């Protein structure tokens, strides 16, 4: 690649054209540097200037490419500024881009001239094209000219309320740049940050948090209201934004929640059980188990929503989640990150380096996290040394009684490594294992002693040093080893090793009384040639021997002291003087010499052999500071957990605000949590229902057909690759249920997708919203599935209880409108509205609403944690035919989204299409004629509908558990049309999940009057369990109850308005019949439902 890159910039950028134009090249072309030196710059630039002034865009473009090439190579192109800046208003977007690149580089140097371009940017900031607006803002904020600070400020403010989320994103980027240019703007910028933090677009979230971190990281208060939203958006933010948000939320959480680590023993089990249970329940339990820690639901929300990101392809995201779990999760949960971290070890060396460093810190404190992955840290001979030593570090941290023998065997290989630096590190590691695990101390010591006869000096030296440390900790059996080491002294030349041996002999001289004086004798001879380190130890040894065995060594010591006195090193001379005064008593020496022996031969504490990564986690993991193990500029301290959690209600999004700003995300206050949970379970069932509808639809069979053809075309294509696609016929023949499900599911998708595709072809901006709709709901629902999947039966049983509790609560809840508003927002996410980007009329719409919708148009999906309906049976009903509506057509279907407008409302999605050739303005609802008790939540008026455009809006209707018709007028600016909505009884239900046991219990209480039943014929192809479930769930919004019997299928739901249970049982009998039983208090609806369900299974 290097070659290519290089040659490109040279050919395209400079060298070739230059040669052509230079009349007499004075140097050879192969030396561009020299060339630049001798060629006259003016001349060269003259030619570029001419090109820039040419009337042809192609010449200008060529010139700009060359100039940008010069900049990239670090050459000075500043004197072209006047010529370049003239082109800033070029119509050609390619030229414009390059001029922008140039300006960003040189505007700071040429401020006066740069001002010439400002008006162009100001104009561009108003351009209808969002890309141009955004790039104008980007350049404007990048040209570091202090005089335009007010203009920048204004531009940022305006851009922060731009309709395009992309422009708003750039506004967030500009904040940081302006801040670095003029920190005095801080207060004003914080206002913009505050505003952008409320933005709902996933595109903006990452950028604004980055600005927050740069400008006002201490303003935690700005986060409160956005905390839940950020958590919920996180999955869909782009990866770089995710990293920044996760780090910020980690800091935030440490200031707001109490530690989950207290009473770990109790908590561990507790939280594990409760992972998926709702908080209400936790509360209940709490009352039983006093003083047990309960995790704040917001705390849990963060942990839950970051977990899927461990699957990111981006190592930085994975690491960010890992550090979040490390710093925030209960200790028992932190270990889920280790698998992902181990996966990262297969990445590039740089990634490995950082990941290993962090794993090293983790593995010291919590061995258990990485123990299962021990072998993944085994060292390969091809690893770079820094990776090897880090792996070794982790292996050492993980060593315990159980694995030490395996590890020591592995270490033996490492010791022999040709990479001697690594071999030395291994010896250190063995030493550490020896001190940490007493069982193997002797083995290690013996092993190390064997290494003393190694041929490699570095290995021997390191062994000596480590043995010395070990012996200090094990003062029992020195004799033999010390003797052995004394013998080695003749051969070892590495100073550290020699010094270590001498120190050992001195320290334990009384144990080797014969050898010690002899060693002193030998070293005295070589004193002058020794390294300073060794000389100091010889002096030391002499002093100690003088004190213990002065008879034999007095003269020797004095000789050595004399040598030291005249040594070249002042260090040695100083030491000599000091020792002499201390040990040789004379009249000048004071009281100290009496204590000389105590001073020299005091019991010394054994050195601690510990990891360099110990305590490194006082730096937040994953940070630069952690990597460097020193505080980096701008490092933000992670605070300790507060003793008492600050008021959690600060994170509640209050009504007025959420209504106004549309920022409120389903606040998960304790009250609401159960709802969410309840719904999320219902989702699961509905998901299945969705697949039914799809698999039955034409698209399903269509795609099957397609597949077959594809399969054959594949073969005929004769591509070199072997196509191992199983064609449909193949999978059909196998007929295994698992596959079937998956296919059904796959096909269900097809329907969504077709819808999407339609949307896309129609209008890009619309499509996005429908796109988002289906994706997001799909995602959220499957989320809930995974959760409920791991729930135990008893759990779901409890959750049922919940619903009941819930039902009592809403009465209060509804009075406090908080919840409803919260849901309103949801509505917007799921109702696609056509908003042409940057068309001024759109501003008439509630700006934030539009903004939100646009945000969605760019993100693939939105994440609203309230799990909403995935794909529902898309059976649409006509509301208004286009003929009678004068070009305005309307259809509706039941989206089965629970509780968007409140508990008792059935949500209805109305798609309004303009089939006329004129704009239709102000579409809204009037003249509701509702039977008593029924209520309706209208959709927001649609300001304007372009010809051929269509919009889907949501509304809610409380049908009072009856199939009465809701009549109202659909009005435009000029016309009124009477329309009505009549609900199928199956849509008046909300699915409920319960265990089989609970189902039977409830059923037992709903007998007699409350039971209706019928015998129905079942078409043979409909007798499979999955088919039955699919069909019933499609026909009515029912939840599937797990069944222990193959021939009995149970479904549960509750009515939307009153919450009465509706239990449906299908019992298959012999000869293609079945008993259909419905138990409910609402006998009228029950019998209607029975009537509607009867034909469902008999039809083919």
């Amino acid at each position: 690649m290097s070659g290519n890159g290089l040659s490109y910039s040279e050919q395209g950028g400079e060298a070739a054209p230059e040669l052509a134009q230079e009349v007499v090249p004075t140097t050879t072309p192969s030396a561009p540097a020299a060339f630049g030196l001798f060629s006259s710059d003016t001349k060269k630039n003259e030619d570029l200037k001419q090109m820039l002034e040419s009337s042809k865009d192609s010449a200008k473009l060529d010139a700009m490419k060359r100039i940008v090439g010069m900049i990239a190579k670090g050459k000075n192109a500043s004197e072209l500024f006047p010529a370049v800046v003239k082109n800033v208003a070029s119509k050609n977007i390619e030229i414009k881009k390059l001029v922008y690149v140039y300006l960003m580089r040189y505007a700071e140097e040429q401020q006066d001239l740069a001002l010439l371009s400002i008006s162009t940017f100001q104009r561009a900031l108003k351009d209808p094209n969002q890309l141009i607006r955004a790039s104008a803002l980007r350049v404007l904020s990048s040209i570091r000219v202090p005089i335009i600070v007010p203009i920048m400020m204004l531009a940022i403010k305006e851009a922060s309320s731009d309709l395009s989320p992309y422009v708003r994103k750039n506004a967030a980027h500009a904040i940081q740049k302006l801040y670095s240019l003029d920190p005095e703007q801080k207060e004003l910028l914080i206002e913009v940050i505050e505003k952008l933090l409320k933005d709902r677009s996933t595109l903006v979230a990452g950028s604004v948090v980055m600005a927050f971190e740069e400008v006002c990281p201490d303003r935690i208060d700005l986060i409160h209201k956005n905390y839940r939203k950020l958590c919920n958006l996180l999955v869909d933010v782009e990866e770089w934004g995710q990293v920044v948000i996760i780090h910020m939320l980690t800091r935030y959480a440490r200031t707001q929640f109490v530690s989950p680590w207290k009473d770990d023993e109790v908590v561990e089990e507790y939280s594990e059980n409760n992972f998926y249970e709702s908080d209400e329940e936790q509360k209940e339990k709490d009352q039983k188990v006093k003083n047990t820690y309960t995790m704040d639901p917001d705390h849990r929300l963060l942990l839950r929503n970051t977990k899927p990101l461990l699957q990111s392809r981006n190592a930085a995201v994975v690491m960010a989640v890992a550090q979040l779990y490390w710093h925030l999760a209960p200790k028992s949960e932190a270990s889920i990150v280790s698998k992902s971290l181990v996966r990262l070890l297969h990445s590039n060396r740089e990634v490995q380096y950082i990941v290993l460093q962090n794993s090293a810190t983790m593995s010291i404190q919590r061995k258990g996290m990485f123990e299962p992955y021990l072998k993944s840290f085994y060292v390969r001979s091809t690893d770079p040394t820094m990776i090897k030593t880090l792996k070794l570090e982790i292996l050492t941290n993980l060593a315990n009684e159980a694995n030490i023998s395996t590890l020591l065997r592995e270490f033996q290989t490492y010791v022999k490594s040709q990479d001697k630096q690594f071999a030395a590190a291994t010896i250190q590691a063995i030493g550490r294992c020896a001190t940490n695990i007493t069982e193997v101390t002797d083995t290690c010591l013996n092993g190390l002693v064997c290494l003393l006869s190694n041929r490699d000096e570095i290995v021997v030296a390191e062994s000596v040093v480590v043995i010395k440390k070990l012996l200090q900790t094990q003062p029992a059996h020195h004799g033999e080893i010390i003797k052995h080491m004394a013998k080695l002294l003749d051969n070892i030349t590495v100073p550290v090793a020699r010094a270590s041996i001498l120190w050992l002999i001195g320290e334990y001289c009384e144990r080797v009384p014969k050898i010690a004086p002899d060693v002193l004798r030998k070293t005295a001879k070589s004193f002058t040639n020794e390294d300073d380190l060794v000389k100091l130890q010889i002096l030391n040894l002499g002093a100690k021997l003088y004190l213990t065995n002065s008879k034999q060594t007095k003269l020797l010591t004095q000789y050595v002291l004399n040598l030291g006195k005249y040594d070249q090193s002042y260090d040695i001379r100083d030491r000599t003087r000091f020792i002499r005064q201390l040990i040789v008593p004379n009249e000048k020496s004071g009281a100290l010499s009496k204590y000389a022996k105590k001073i020299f031969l005091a019991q010394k504490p054994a050195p601690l052999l510990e990891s360099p990564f110990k305590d490194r986690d006082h730096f937040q993991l994953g940070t630069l500071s952690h990597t460097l193990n020193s505080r980096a500029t701008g490092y933000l301290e992670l605070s300790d957990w507060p003793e008492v959690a600050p008021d959690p209600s600060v994170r509640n999004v209050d009504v007025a605000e959420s209504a106004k700003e549309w920022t409120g995300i389903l606040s998960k206050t304790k009250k609401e949590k159960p709802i969410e949970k309840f719904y999320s379970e219902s989702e699961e069932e509905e998901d299945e229902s969705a697949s039914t509808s799809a698999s039955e639809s034409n698209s399903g069979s269509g795609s099957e057909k397609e597949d077959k053809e594809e399969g054959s075309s594949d073969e005929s294509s004769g591509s070199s690759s072997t196509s191992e696609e199983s064609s449909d016929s193949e999978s059909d023949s196998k007929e295994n249920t698992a596959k079937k499900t998956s296919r059904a599911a796959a096909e269900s998708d097809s329907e969504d997708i077709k819808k999407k595709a339609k949307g896309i072809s129609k209008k890009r901006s619309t499509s996005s919203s429908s796109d988002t709709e289906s994706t997001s709901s799909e995602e959220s629902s499957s989320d809930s599935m995974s959760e409920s999947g791991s729930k135990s039966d008893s759990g779901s049983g409890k959750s049922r209880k919940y619903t009941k509790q819930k039902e009592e609560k809403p009465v209060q809840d509804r009075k406090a409108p908080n919840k409803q508003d919260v849901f309103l927002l949801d509505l917007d996410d799921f109702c696609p509205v056509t908003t042409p980007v940057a068309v001024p009329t759109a501003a008439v719409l509630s700006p934030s609403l539009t903004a939100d919708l646009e945000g969605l148009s760019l993100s693939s999906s939105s994440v609203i944690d309230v799990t909403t309906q995935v794909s529902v049976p898309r059976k649409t009903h006509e509301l208004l035919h286009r003929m009678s509506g004068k070009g305005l057509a309307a259809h509706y279907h039941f989206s089965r989204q629970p509780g968007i407008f409140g508990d008792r409302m059935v949500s209805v999605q109305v798609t309004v299409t303009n089939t006329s050739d004129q704009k239709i303005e102000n579409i809204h609802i009037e003249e509701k004629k509702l039977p008593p008790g029924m209520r309706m939540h209208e959709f927001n008026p649609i300001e304007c509908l372009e010809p051929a455009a269509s919009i889907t809006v949501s509304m809610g209707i409380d049908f009072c558990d009856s199939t009465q018709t809701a009549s109202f007028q659909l009005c435009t600016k000029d016309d009124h049309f009477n329309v009505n909505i009549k609900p199928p009884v199956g849509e008046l239900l909300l699915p409920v999940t319960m265990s089989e046991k609970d189902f039977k219990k409830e059923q037992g209480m709903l007998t007699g009057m409350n039971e209706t039943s019928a015998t129905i014929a079942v078409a043979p192809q409909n007798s499979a369990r999955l088919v039955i479930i699919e069909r019933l769930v499609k026909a009515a919004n029912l939840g599937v109850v797990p069944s222990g019997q193959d021939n009995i299928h149970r479904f549960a739901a509750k009515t939307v308005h009153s919450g009465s249970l509706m239990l449906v049982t299908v019992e298959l009998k012999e000869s293609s019949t079945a008993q259909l039983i419905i138990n409910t208090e609402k006998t009228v609806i029950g019998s209607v439902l029975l009537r509607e369900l009867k034909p469902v299974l008999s039809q083919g």
Partner: protein
Amino acid sequence: MIHSLFLINASGDIFLEKHWKSVVSRSVCDYFFEAQERASEAENVPPVIPTPHHYLLSVYRHKIFFVAVIQSEVPPLFVIEFLHRVVDTFQDYFGSTNVGDQLPTGQLSVVPWRRTGVKYTNNEAYFDVIEEIDAIIDKSGSTITAEIQGVIDACVKLTGMPDLTLSFMNPRLLDDVSFHPCVRFKRWESERILSFIPPDGNFRLLSYHVSAQNLVAIPVYIKHNISFRDSSSLGRFEITVGPKQTMGKTVEGVMVTSQMPKGVLNMTLTPSQGTHIFDPVTKLLSWDVGKINPQKLPSLKGSVSLQAGTSKPDENPTINLQFKIQQLAISGLKVNRLDMYGEKYKPFKGIKYMTKAGKFQVRT
């Protein structure tokens, strides 16, 4: 975040620079050069280097250092990962084709990773399941550790906005995965189906990891007899490569490399097939074996001459092995089916499997 970026080639020239904020003098790279000198090899240059006013974070790829200049605290992986993406992009852009006049276009699309208005006359979608085995085999031939690092690389050239689903016969194998952002994670979580609107062209759909805790089939073995002798300066060297668990597929592209100890002067070897080179300077032996014929196992035999006067090396050399097996995913992963929704045409579809050696080492 990243202040400036410098590109430094193998000969130590800064050949490209880019500044996002005010210009940082290229002299800041001197600190990098110092570190480079201290590290014996390019691989050992620390990825993070603190300097008095800046931090230098670098990645090394294609013999080029990409050095980012940072001024304040930032997650280092953020920068490193970003630099790797930059390199990937360069590679994409400069790599295979000649560099066109076209400047890269930034497009805002509904689906951020896919440009709009894609058109092809031949619509095709190819998926390569590539698995690499990382293994350490000990002296006696038993596996110390073995892991599989798998990827599914896709080349999708489909018109419009296709929506694909890919399902597996045995998705259970994939318990440690990472996805391209286009994959709908929740769908995977619930159904174990990969559902995605693909980016246009080549991309990595998924990577997965089968950890050392699982049983991994080892497709080849090496029989070795390497001995250096103290007394004489001649040592023996003999290796044979053979197939083991290959599921009946041919092992090809076999390449054996081994870093000999410093004391080795020269090697006199005869291969039964393929070619071999011993570089007396770097002491690297490489043997390009080619295909393994199970009937006639390839071997390399001969003698090793040691430098006179040096004692025998402590350690026998590690043997690194490369190989390829077509049409086999060693983990057993199999794609069940690929479906396309959202577009009317019928694409060509293809799945290819391949197993390769990753870091496959045999200790001797």
